[in-house]
């Protein structure tokens, strides 16, 4: 757990979190590992965990009929995978496909949700951080939609 503690403390996502909250978080954390090609979670499954990727690479995919799954984004080292655990309906919207051997810190979302309900200050700290991630993703996605590299005729 000591190694875990250091990893979480140093992770940018948790920067600025006070000791009390850090302990609450640690209580919900564990080390996990996924071999190449494993699916970390699938569309439609209950979302009760999020991950801090430490090694490897994860593709977020959408299943399309008659086609192989479409990769909409990739999540790499140092990034946060999954936010559907935070807000209802607590269900994954995409598949998370490990495209390499991937190691991550898993955080028990159900556990954290309960702690956030009891302690709204902790809840606010999480929502702030996730809001930032979602905003960044939204901006990037809008940029992606612009299809700037195509030749306009």
């Amino acid at each position: 757990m000591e190694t875990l503690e250091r990893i979480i403390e140093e992770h940018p996502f948790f920067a600025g979190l006070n000791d009390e909250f850090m302990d609450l978080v640690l209580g919900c954390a564990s080390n996990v590992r996924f071999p190449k090609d494993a699916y970390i979670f699938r569309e439609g499954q209950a979302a009760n965990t999020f991950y801090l990727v430490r090694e490897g690479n994860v593709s977020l995919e959408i299943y399309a009929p008659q086609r192989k799954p479409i990769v909409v984004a990739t999540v790499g080292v140092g990034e946060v995978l999954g936010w559907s655990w935070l807000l209802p309906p607590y269900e994954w919207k995409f598949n998370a496909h490990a495209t390499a051997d991937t190691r991550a810190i898993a955080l028990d979302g159900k556990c954290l949700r309960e702690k956030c309900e009891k302690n709204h200050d902790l809840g606010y700290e999480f929502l702030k951080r996730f809001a930032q991630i979602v905003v960044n993703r939204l901006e990037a996605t809008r940029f992606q939609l612009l299809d700037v590299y195509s030749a306009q005729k």
Partner: protein
Amino acid sequence: MTAAAAQLDAMVPCPGVVRQVVKDTPDTFTLTVSRENEREQNAFQPGQFSMLWMFGVGEVPISISGDPANREQLTYTVRSVGKTTEALVSHKPGMSIGIRGPFGTGWPIEAARGRDVVIVAGGIGLAPLRPAIYEVLNNRDRYGRLVLLYGARSPRELLYRKELAAWARQPNTQVLVTVDYGGLGWHGNVGVVTTLFKSARLQPANSIAMICGPEIMMRFVTRQLGECGVTTESTYLSMERNMQCALGFCGHCQYGPHFICKDGPVFPYAKIRPLLEKHEL
């Protein structure tokens, strides 16, 4: 280049011969051209462009995309988007081509000495940056880290794929590539080029950034660079406008008070920052 030779190239195309045409992507080709005249005339600054002329069809500005150390040939990466570029890419080896130039301002190679060089390219924007990459790799000890962030629409629209792999193996060099749309068989990053920043190992305080790509992309990237701590004074962009004479006479390439053909195409970000946000400038 002697003053006389410079004036000669200014208005009248110099004959060149196409030596090689390589297809990079479905609509982009790299042409290698040699000229009969002195090697001096093939000297250029990374970031500069030539006016390439197809006999009787027209003339277009194309960035020089080759190695500045190679004086035997000039290399151009051309995307077929209109009548003249279509004619250019249809060249066969042995055909003649007219060349005027080189024109314009180049990347801040001198200012980059002793600093980390961050190159952010989008789509065909990698073409005018490639000479800067060659310059750094040819003189490795003059520069710090080299970080290349490159985004394209899809894997088959990536330019210079073999070279990207070769550059990634160079000392103190990081090459990160991403595509907007992944498709089959792509195991790399999917997402816009700004998503590569978090994986880039930068020392922002001592970095100089050179950016080229569609204007929207450059706006997103400069914002991201700023958030990473690279100053506006250390950031350079390559701009594009309608260009006809390349000499500052025809007036078409004006961007605010700047003539892109002679005050650019490479600009320090600080100089054009207020202009980038203006609609229909």
